[in-house]
């Protein structure tokens, strides 16, 4: 309030400063327009054109309307609609990693914040579980490949102990490939989720826990009746950002399966599919249509994140203060 009044006094002054706001945000927008916005429109534009390379011959670009989209959703020789299969693959592998990720992160967040348990060495545990998040996904995946490959040490130990057959290949079995990818995603993300959820729990007013305990609630009741409902906004935010990250899953399965999504494309993700159109065929038309499809899925999920983030900034300052004060 005070600031505004002061500005009103010397209205000339505030006008001359407004220009600096524009100058300061100009580089961001300039770069955003050139490197993101224009490419986005170009991608959309491409999706309406036939534009690819057939051997040495360049086909197009010819306007074909919605043909690329039709082709994207039409079944291949075996009657499978590839884009849906890859969507399903992405979803399955994401869920396989995300379910344990959220369950364990929630548990750890409760452990770390519990004043009854008083966990020692929290700094160490947090550092360790967060570490895989910063590791290069491509290198992590390559490491898993070398360890689980038929000549690798883990394969060797499992054969020695008679757990698997010597001829067993982790990378030609649907279940093991998907599980390994999910395991890597789990390892890379559960630490991050733990820390975010923990921060969320610590943001909740401690007196609420105390009064619930005094009223005779047991720890399980406290969690389900107090902690979880108050943590809900942050939990949902985490979940949706994780989902958006899941849709972008690429590096790990790409390196692990050499880009072919073995076996039989059952570990191929949407972005791997997108990447395949950049290969020798340079099929920008189909890649464009696929990008739009991915954009629509992420966009609708992202809308929730946007809602969540913009909520504190909408409306009045009064609401803002209150929100800042309690849950967040």
């Amino acid at each position: 309030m005070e600031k505004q009044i002061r500005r009103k006094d010397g209205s000339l002054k505030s006008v001359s400063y407004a220009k600096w706001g524009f100058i300061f945000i100009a580089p961001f927008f300039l770069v955003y327009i050139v490197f993101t916005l224009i490419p986005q429109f170009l991608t959309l534009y491409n999706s309406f054109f036939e534009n690819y390379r057939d051997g040495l011959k360049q086909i197009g670009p010819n306007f074909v309307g919605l043909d690329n989209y039709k082709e994207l959703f039409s079944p291949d020789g075996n009657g499978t609609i590839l884009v849906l299969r890859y969507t399903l693959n992405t979803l399955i592998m994401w869920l396989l990693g995300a379910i344990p990720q959220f369950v364990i992160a929630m548990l750890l967040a409760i452990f770390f914040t519990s004043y009854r348990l008083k966990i020692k060495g929290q700094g160490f545990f947090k550092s360790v579980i967060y570490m895989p998040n910063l590791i290069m996904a491509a290198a992590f995946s390559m490491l898993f490949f070398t360890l689980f490959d038929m000549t690798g040490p883990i394969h060797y130990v499992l054969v020695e102990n008679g757990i698997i057959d010597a001829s067993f290949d982790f990378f030609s079995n649907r279940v093991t490939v998907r599980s390994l990818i999910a395991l890597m995603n789990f390892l890379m993300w559960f630490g991050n989720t733990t820390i975010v959820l923990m921060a969320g729990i610590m943001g909740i007013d401690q007196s609420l826990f105390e009064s619930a305990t005094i009223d005779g609630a047991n720890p399980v009741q406290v969690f389900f009746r107090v902690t979880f409902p108050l943590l809900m906004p942050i939990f949902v935010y985490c979940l949706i950002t994780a989902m958006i990250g899941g849709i972008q899953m690429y590096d790990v399965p790409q390196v692990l399966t050499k880009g072919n999504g073995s076996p039989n494309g059952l570990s191929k993700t949407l972005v791997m599919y997108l990447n395949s159109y950049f290969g020798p065929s340079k099929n920008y038309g189909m890649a464009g249509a696929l990008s739009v499809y991915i954009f629509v899925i992420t966009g609708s999920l992202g809308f929730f994140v946007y809602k969540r983030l913009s909520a504190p900034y909408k409306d009045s300052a009064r609401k803002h203060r209150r929100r800042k004060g309690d849950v967040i």
Partner: protein
Amino acid sequence: MSKQSGAVNRKRGLSDNTKGMVKLTALRVIVYAILIFLSFLCLFFFYLMIINASRTHADLQKGFTLLPGGNFIQNLVNAWNDASINIPRGMLNSLIIALATAVLTTYFSALTAYGIHAYDFRGKKLVFTFILAVMMIPSQVSAVGFVQLMNKMGLHDSYIPLIVPGIAAPVVFFYMKQYMESVLPLDLVAAARVDGSGEFRTFNTIVLPLLKPAIAVQMIFSFVSSWNNYFIPALLLDKPEKKTVPIMIAQLRSADYSKFDMGKVFMFILLAILPVMIVYIILSKSIIKGITAGSVKG
């Protein structure tokens, strides 16, 4: 209430209490077991990597051990001097790109955030809403247009498309904006103005130093994500001497890797993640503080 029942109650209370203590201890044991197991899981694969990077190819073929071998230096020399995968060059390339990106991203995100935080101008709300709305759009969905446009601009095999887009980083912007709200009083800016400081000077000499913790955290994150970035660089960089580390690691996988010296392969992977590991070991405390701070407000 009679005396007797009171005593019974007290007795029951006591036994409840000891039961509670036993329960709590048991719970603690389980919790520590879970934590140790998860920590083990996080470290185990990297431990194996380091062990295997210290063994010879012949040793690795023979089987499995949890003890280091004596071939670490030799593997390092072999990997470093490999003819087909020029890892020192790749590391240098990645370092240049990641450092430049980290500096540009943090500086310009702070600048943009300051532009919106400290000034009132028309359409400010709209600008802010726009940045929030586009925050979650992944770079992959504009890759087709991006690659086309960069090729047209003659920027294939150039680092400009990998560095400059860092200037427009909505997520970092949002973090900076949040941080400014909690640490940057606008009176300070007004005072600097009274003292005759220009707007850019105020930002560079007064605002930036106040943002140091936020800048440090975001520099680390943008460095790491640029160092690890694989999708877009792989689409733009073709010349072998331009390639970055993740591309080389992926190449390792697509080459006929049975021909490789396995000790060397493990060493390549170790080298790829080593810089980030070192930074993390030194700074893990502030990194974790940084995510915590960023997430509570989010």
